[in-house]
């Protein structure tokens, strides 16, 4: 699993989408992250050094290659804009709903 910076993650995610255009799936996972880097110890309730509340983990894979990034509230605005644009631009293979326009073709729209 490759942990990347948010910008690099977006670049690699774009590549994943492009790679899977003809066949294959792109999986994206989003989860809240509390900043722990070590597994929770069984004995003694020693909390991780910094249990932070404002991070999330984003993972992406095509089944073979795995990438991930941690997003914190500081980068969220810029990242979210770029990320949303990326998703919308790449998930463009779905059916367009044009049943309405076909039936209205003969009738003039008001």
């Amino acid at each position, binding site marked *: 699993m490759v942990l990347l910076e948010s910008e690099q993650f977006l670049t690699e995610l774009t590549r994943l989408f492009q790679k899977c255009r003809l066949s294959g*799936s792109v999986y994206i996972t*989003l989860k809240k992250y509390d900043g722990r880097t070590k597994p929770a110890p069984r004995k003694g309730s020693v909390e991780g050094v910094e249990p932070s509340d404002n991070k999330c983990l984003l993972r992406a894979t095509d089944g073979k290659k795995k990438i991930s990034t941690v997003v914190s509230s500081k980068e969220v605005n810029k990242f979210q804009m770029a990320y949303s644009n990326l*998703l919308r631009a790449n*998930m463009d293979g779905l059916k367009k709903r044009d049943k309405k326009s076909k039936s209205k073709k003969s009738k003039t729209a008001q």
Partner: protein
Amino acid sequence: MRQYQTWEEFSRTAEKLYLADPMKARVVLKYRHSDGSLCIKVTDDLVCLVYRTDQAQDVKKIEKFHSQLMRLMLAKESRSVAMEMD
């Protein structure tokens, strides 16, 4: 595992599921360009909610919902936004 046919129902239930236990819940998106299908799943490993679609109009809804959940995860304060306590 519960498959939803309506987006309204799915997004309402999914958000509730996340808010019930933010650390447990995760969101999974699966996109297949070859099939022209998009699937979003929200689960806490006990309950699993899934919404599938092949309609372009759902992409925006799903992407907005995904971003909304991301913002919830990144909200610093643990108190809800609705309750503003001094």
